[in-house]
């Protein structure tokens, strides 16, 4: 191994003939790095000594681009961050903008928002389930998760016009009203989902091989999770009960009855369980909302050109990955002076080295799957 392969972020290896460590370059082209992520792994045999994620392969300069766009156009950009929960990102941006402009949201729009956001959470967690199973070697699990997600996306397509890049919410409500077929379709979907989820639960949750692969693997302590700025399921699996929907409620979440599942071991299995339970909680939330959608406007009246007053505004939402915060600095025009996004995957990925140290190479794949990173959100 020539020395010039050493990369920034690594210590010089000790000069010792018996110490046979070597480097493996995982990604950006690798089946289980979930996008263009590059991990440089320092190995001793199959044991991981150090993992350094290298980011930036799909950096598009979104925050800089946003300075040239107006606020409404930036909502479109947020679709392209975490493409699995595009609609929740829309919501996050809209909340920040509403906070700044002081716009109220009609009740009907709030219900639409919550239902769509929870559907998107289920879709994202289904992708997690699929990728987790797939990364453990169960190709069937991979296909099953995506099957139900497609059904959710069908609903998205009908409502928003697009499956993935929804671009649906606007400050003060949503872009369009929901179609008449929406409520029966969602009800049918929920019924189907409950059956499917119980099947998937049977398939993987108690599976002895899956449990062996994930129980006690990639343990993240409570202190580390907080220190690295983890959020979402990764944080809650480590025993911290923090969910923006409960702790800092936005939209109508304060009036809804749902639990925030918390687990205390902080290993891969807990991160898996927590997401599975969150899917059930989301179904519970949607069930509460779907019959109560009030009549009325879906968008509050506003001026044709959206402007923010001078100042800086911040709003946080709980996406499927964790805390998605949008910080807007305005100088009074119709385009931002600066927008910064606090993306959950970035903080979660930062804890990778701590989780993976001392584990096997196979465990790295499991750990990465349970972090559930979405690279465009990290790179932006």
């Amino acid at each position, binding site marked *: 191994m020539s020395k010039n392969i050493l990369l920034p972020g690594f210590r010089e290896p000790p000069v010792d003939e018996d110490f046979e460590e070597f480097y493996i370059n995982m990604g950006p082209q690798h089946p289980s790095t979930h996008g263009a992520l590059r991990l440089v792994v320092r190995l001793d045999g199959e044991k991981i000594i150090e993992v350094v994620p290298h980011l930036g392969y799909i950096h598009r300069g979104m925050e800089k681009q946003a300075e040239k766009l107006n606020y409404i156009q930036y909502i479109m950009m947020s679709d392209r961050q975490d493409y699995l929960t595009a609609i929740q990102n829309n919501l996050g941006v809209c909340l920040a903008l509403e906070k700044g402009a002081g716009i109220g949201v009609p009740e009907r729009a709030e219900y639409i928002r919550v239902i769509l956001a929870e559907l998107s959470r289920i879709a994202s967690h289904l992708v997690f389930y699929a990728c987790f199973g797939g990364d453990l070697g169960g190709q069937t699990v991979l296909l099953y998760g995506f099957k139900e997600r497609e059904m959710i996306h069908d609903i998205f397509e009908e409502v*928003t016009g697009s499956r993935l890049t929804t671009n649906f919410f606007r400050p003060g409500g949503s872009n369009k009203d929901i179609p008449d077929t929406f409520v029966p379709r969602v009800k049918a979907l929920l019924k189907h989902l409950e059956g499917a989820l119980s099947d998937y639960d049977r398939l*993987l949750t108690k599976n002895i091989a899956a449990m062996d692969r994930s129980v*006690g693997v990639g343990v993240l302590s409570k202190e580390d999770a907080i220190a690295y700025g983890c959020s979402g399921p990764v944080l809650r699996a480590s025993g911290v009960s923090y969910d923006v929907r409960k702790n800092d409620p936005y939209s109508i979440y304060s009036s809804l009855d749902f639990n925030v599942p918390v687990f205390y071991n902080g290993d891969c299995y807990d991160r898996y369980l927590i997401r599975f339970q969150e899917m059930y909680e989301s179904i519970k939330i949607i069930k509460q909302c779907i019959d109560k959608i009030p009549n009325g406007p879906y968008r509050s009246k506003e001026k044709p050109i959206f402007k923010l007053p001078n100042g800086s505004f911040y709003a946080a939402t709980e996406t499927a990955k964790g805390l998605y915060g949008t910080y807007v600095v305005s100088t009074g025009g119709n385009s931002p002076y600066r927008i910064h996004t606090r993306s959950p995957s970035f903080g979660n990925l930062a804890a990778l080295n701590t989780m993976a140290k001392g584990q096997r190479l196979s465990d790295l794949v499991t750990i990465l799957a349970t972090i559930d990173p979405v690279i465009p959100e990290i790179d932006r």
Partner: protein
Amino acid sequence: MSTEKIKTKEYIKRYLKRCVSGPYSLLCGLSVTLRYFFNPKRIVTEQYPENKKTLKMHNRFRGHVVMVEDENGENLCTACGMCERACPNASINVLATKNIAGKKVLGKYLYHFGSCTQCGLCVEACPFGAIEMGQGFEFADFSPEAFEKVLNKKEGRG
């Protein structure tokens, strides 16, 4: 991989428990896949090129931008340029011209499909309903020129 010290009796107990619960969990999983295997109704594959005739996109589906035209091919565009300003990617250029009466009308509506992200902001911005999102989705082409479109067939009426 626990290094905690446990008694032999406890170890044997755990071992035997695993011997029973392990195969049982695997059989549970197998029952799911077997049920799916023997149930062809669950198949969700769409035979795409074959089902083209019956395949209908949703009304709101955002394909490419098309111009609303009446039966004479007349469009409603007034060349106000709202869509051009609303577009985040500068995919639209509205080239205005003057008609015989000296009034500003639409000359050419240039649409650069290659840079369009189909966000639909232009349609939202249009105050006259002159453009809408089309239902098409097969746009692959060999030349980049195919993505430079002129949407209007006739000059705008103003």
